[in-house]
């Protein structure tokens, strides 16, 4: 009996001891965050907000649309599709064999300036149905090799255009191999129009991605010749056609910058283009276009952006109007308790 007492009292004390500090520590600490009482703004969509939001959008969008349209209208663009015309009549039924033959591929085109074009006038070639964005094609390059002479034999990602007779190709890969090789020469009134082919690529590409100590090696000397050959004495950082070409396009129809004509062209001036139609787009029924275009602050000719802005702005205006009508026809006092579910269908839930 006496032996019980100490143990039971000790137990009692022990439990009291253990519970006392626990009690304090378990009490959640008050903070606005843990009690979910942080000050908050609770905006609600009142009719005024809805209408002003839509109006605001239309007020912003319509001017932007107008300005964009004007900018686009300012741009003058001359497009000449030449892939069929530049094939002699005899070969029109079999263009592929023509392009693969050694026949003379020179072709002359006449372009008439419709409106005054202020310099710089950008010269583009546009290819169609050319899947530069195909995964097999996109992957077939070696960035390290392009950048750095020391990794010139890093061609593992370039298959099937990785080496030629056992020697690594620089620049390797399908993209480089299929470099566009049509050339354009412009003349105005029998006078040569200079085409500036520098600074047509991104500066960062020239400076950081294509090494100035990397020179073409074993390029286009295999059994299959793809596109343009590169001058082995010029470093890649200066081969701007290649740099532009290596920026793979997002869509199968794309334009790439060929050069710049740095002089104004007047209306009705006729430009003679002597072009070498070398590039084979006939295998895949691709079109080829030569484009001369000026730019505005918005870039090239792009009516769509302005139209889209105007459409959305107009739509918002229409929405603002219709909501105004709705609010007028079926007005609901905000916070009107009679709309609460228990007031609308009392009893049955």
């Amino acid at each position: 009996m006496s032996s019980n007492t100490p143990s039971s009292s000790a137990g009692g004390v022990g439990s009291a001891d253990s519970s006392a500090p626990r009690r304090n520590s378990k009490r959640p600490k008050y903070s606005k965050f843990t009690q979910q009482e942080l000050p908050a703004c609770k905006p609600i969509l009142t009719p005024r907000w809805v209408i002003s939001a839509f109006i605001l959008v239309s007020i912003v969008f319509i001017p932007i649309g107008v300005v964009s349209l004007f900018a686009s209208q300012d741009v003058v663009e001359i497009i000449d599709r030449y892939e069929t015309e530049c094939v002699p009549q005899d070969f029109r039924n079999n263009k592929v064999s023509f392009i693969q033959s050694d026949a003379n591929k020179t072709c002359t085109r006449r372009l008439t300036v419709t409106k005054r074009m202020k310099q710089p006038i950008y010269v583009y070639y546009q290819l169609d149905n050319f899947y530069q964005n195909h995964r097999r094609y996109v992957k077939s390059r070696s960035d390290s090799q392009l950048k750095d002479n020391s990794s010139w034999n890093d061609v593992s990602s370039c298959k099937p255009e990785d080496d030629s007779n056992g020697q690594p190709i620089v620049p390797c890969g399908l993209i480089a191999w299929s470099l566009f090789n049509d050339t354009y020469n412009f003349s105005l009134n029998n006078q040569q129009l200079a085409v500036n082919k520098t600074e047509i690529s991104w500066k960062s590409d020239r400076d950081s991605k294509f090494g100035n100590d990397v020179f073409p090696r074993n390029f286009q000397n295999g059994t299959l010749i793809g596109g343009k050959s590169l001058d082995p004495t010029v470093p890649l950082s200066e081969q701007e056609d290649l740099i532009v070409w290596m920026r793979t396009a997002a869509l199968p129809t794309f334009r790439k910058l060929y050069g710049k004509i740095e002089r104004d062209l007047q209306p009705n001036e006729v430009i003679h283009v002597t072009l070498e139609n070398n590039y084979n787009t006939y295998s895949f029924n691709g079109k080829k276009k030569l484009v001369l275009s000026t730019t505005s602050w918005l870039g090239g000719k792009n009516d769509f952006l302005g139209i889209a802005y105007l459409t959305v702005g107009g739509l918002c205006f229409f929405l603002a109007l219709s909501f105004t009508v709705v609010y007028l026809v079926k007005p609901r006092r905000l916070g009107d308790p009679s709309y609460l579910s228990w007031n609308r269908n009392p009893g049955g839930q």
Partner: protein
Amino acid sequence: MAKGRIRRKLRKSHLYTFCLYPGAAGKCGQPVGGPGFSRTVHCNEPQMHSQKPFKYRANDISTTKYSFLSFLPKALYEQFNRVANLYFLGCAIASLTPLSPFSAVSMIAPLAFVVGLSMAKEALEDWRRFMQDMEVNSRKVKVHAGEAFDKKAWQNVRVGDVVRVEKDQFFPSDLLLLSSNNEDGICYVETMNLDGETNLKPKRALEVTLDLDEDEDFKNFKGIIKCEDPNPSLYTFVGNFEYNGQVYAIDPSQILLRDSKLRNTAFVYGIVIFTGHDSKVMQNSTKSPSKRSRIERKMDYIIYVLFSVLLVISLISSFGFAVEIKYSMPGWWFMRPQEADEYYNPREPVTSGISHMVTALMLYGYLIPISLYVSIEVVKVLQATFINQDILMYDEETGIPAQARTSNLNEELGQVDTILSDKTGTLTCNQMDFLKCSIAGTAYGSSSSDVELAAEQQMANDPVNKVELEAVVSSLSEKGHKSSIKGFNFEDSRLMNGNCLKEPKQEDIMLFFRILAVCHTAIPELNEETGSYTYEAESPDEGAFLVAAREFGFEFFQRTQSSVTVREKYTASGNPIDREYKILNVLEFTSKRKRMTVIVRDEDGQILLMCKGADRLVSLLYLDLISIIFDRLSKDGRFYQEDTTRHLNEYGEAGLRTLALAYKKLEESEYSAWNTEFQKAKTSIGADRDIMLEKAAEMMERDLILIGATAVEDKLQKGVPKCIDKLAQAGLKLWVLTGDKMETAINIGYACSLLRQGMKQICIQATDSDVKEEVKVDILKQINNGSQTIREEKDPYASFALIIDGKTLVYALEDDMKHRFLDLGVRCASVICCRVSPKQKALVTRLVKQGTGKTTLAIGDGANDVGMIQEADIGVGISGVEGMQAVMASDFSVSQFRFLERLLVVHGHWCYKRIAQMICYFFYKNIAFGLTLFYFEAFTGFSGQSVYDDWYMLLFNVVLTSLPVISLGVLEQDVSSEVCLEFPAIYQQGPRNLFFDWYRILGWMGNGLLASLIIFFLNIVIFYNQAFCIGGQTADMTALGTTMFTCIIWSLNIQIVLTMSHFTWIQHATIWGSIVTWYLFLAVYGALSPDISRDAYQILVEALAPAPIYWTTTLLVAVTCNLPYMAHIAYQRCLKPMDHHIIQEIKYYRKDVEDQHMWKREQLKARQKTKIGFTARVEAKIRQLRSKMHKKQ
């Protein structure tokens, strides 16, 4: 001390009467030793069991899901059991092959992150369980070791050990009781953790081991127990005890079960029979099932839908690829088709197409939000933290906060339809308070119960009644709820402090108190500190009577073998007198008799019969007043019957537990004649004994004289009626499942307002028939009758209650009947199941869960509730009471029932909406993003090229769009917590699933589709082939991809702004932060060496930022994407506003402050029509009071 010891030994012995049969233990011929009965325990030789033939389990328990070794494989298995994760695992493996459209790291890193985070969470949760097990395992118990008893941790207790358990300790394992400090080997145990019953149960040692009651006796103690194998049956035990060459049968009354507690007994000795997981209580526990919320299960279906979409577009893509390969690729000389490898082989387009399928499945994987699971886990953990940290769910008294033990059911809290609740410890405190009494036709006691108080308060607030009610209110202004004495909450100066002597019928009053002080089986215990007596009674209401008698001046202070002594404080002479009553017979209280009688001889030699008994009993179909006592009154003993009945009705309606008290004076001859009869019955042997005894008792208990009635309050936990009321208003149904007696359950039903006067009670009871079919047919008839009654009820305000007991449930839960039973239960406003076993609790829960298909929540506090807690969709444990089983099995634990309101109505509602909105948004976002990849495919000859840089894709889910959506999931509040509580009807948005139905999900998916179309095609057309800046350069794939991605980031974030309605600085920070992060990332990424950033080198600084078209496109796309949604919500809010919209507006315009009348009125209306609950009760009460006042006028 010596004297005290003798008294202690004596005092228990006399208490058992014919309810216990010493010597009638175990019938012989049990198949001990046969199959299923193979266990052999060598007493006091635990080392015997560590060897081969036995090898019993150790006593440590483990409820953890994993062990150190099994964690990795098991947790990984669980993770990859999720379809989405398995898919991503496949993708990660495939990403190591050349088929992958992305770099391997961009596939593996997010997966590793996601899986790692989930596993870390699992590990943490399991660690907590482990710590809890450790706590139990390291509890100490005294174990016999060679010479003496040493303290040992529970986990080291072995089979065969002799243990000594002391008062108020839990038994460490299943024990065979050898002896107790009482000479007759009786001990009392509390089995609340096992079956929820609160009364103490006597256990009795075998006579042969009674002498082993000292520590020294066990030195040479040997014996062998042969018994049944471990099994989950709590109420049976079959075994033999071989001791000193003799074999004795053991029956359940010698078995002390683990998790029950020794009470009213100083110590016991026992032999360990079943340890650890072999013990009956552990055998009863089932593996805690992993529960998933309804939303998550539905989310799986959405994922399947997305998988189908993924499969379809992959098929389209592969088909397109194969066609392109076959027909176009031969012309694509720039791709060297003649040297194509197996993936691009024009000669075998089918093979290429199939291998492309793998690529496509990976590429479009962005449709399946990989970070969805992990974001949900993060959100849920944070939500759980809010639940844990909620100061309004912290109980100051016990010092325990609410706890979300598993965080994956938070949103389920917002969808609960039915609550299944335990009674004792959950609704009630297991404490009885003496509240009122009616003596000789006069009602005493002014402490009003909660219902009365509220009714009067509400009437007082009602201006119409103000004047009339002033009288009522003033009489109630002194509230009686300040009693400091446990078990006594009585206030009436007419009886207190000896004033009863001045009352007109003082003789009757004195007799009334004497009956209270004498007619019981309790034992007084002197509290040496205070000098007053406390009582150890078998049931708490008996204790309350004694406390009341003491407070009235009739202090029971001594019990001997044959007498009870009461000190009367207030006497005519003014000096206290001790009166001794010789106890002649005790006819004990049993659930069948529902009454207790003592026959005593007072000091004057007068033989008195004192009787207390239930005043009401449940009839077969409807509850009638069939009185136990009233039937037994003599003709002239009914003098007070009318008044007493009225009082009893009032008490009963107030939810009080009532007993009627009666007595009669006996002549010596009359008594002795009966006593011979009774003794004869008592000593008779055979099956008739019970019947004979009952007959004898019946003979004596009649011609009684009614003296009065008592009203005891089964003390409810704080705030329970209010909470039940609120939950009912929120449209939740409440079923009470209790192990307690039917009367207690009904009383509590009244106290909690689950039942009220005027409610039609359908009571289903099995008949006492041995033929099972008959019983079933009868029950079926009762159920059908009940259903029919409900169907035929014309009064729309009529409400029904279903009351059923465990015995009947056995049949009602059988397959052929359960649906009818459920159907009846669902139609009733409240359902009370009493005397149900833990198993039945679980079965009922399962029936409700599966039968109604709605979300169920089970709440309970004891081990007997574990089954239902695990079975229900959500299990809530009441923490703070002893025994952690319920809490350990639960998903959430609160320390008080009343916190359930906040847990469901506030946290549940919020979590439901948060998770629902978050998941919808997630699907939107991934569809909007993932489909742009698909569209782009069509423009690349289906080659599997992605327009975005790998790093954009990697960051998209993990960094760029995750935080805003997490802040939506954690912090969004449609309405504030006060409004949630004030407008319980808003809760119904969850159970009706307004925010996660297919209409809404598909709407969001459609929105995602629209966004993807707008984003992609606007960008494509704008960047088609034109120069995009003044320098004449055209956009390459990276420029287009980056612009498109910028548009996506903007669109998604504006979308989430439109979705949210609650902006704290955190939301602002995450949303605008995620946009800023994108630009920062672009700048930083572009500034890195081109080896890393590749085409994205300097993209922002050099190419995009200077180009106005980049910014104008972003603006155009971001606005256009969100126009449809904006128009939709504006339209919806204007014409079909939802409840929370209106309340937001009221709050926004501060109408709740300006027009408080309206605000209050709407709160009153914002309730589901309830037929149960406090409000319904109060309204009924108001009607009653009003009619009373009219009568007076």
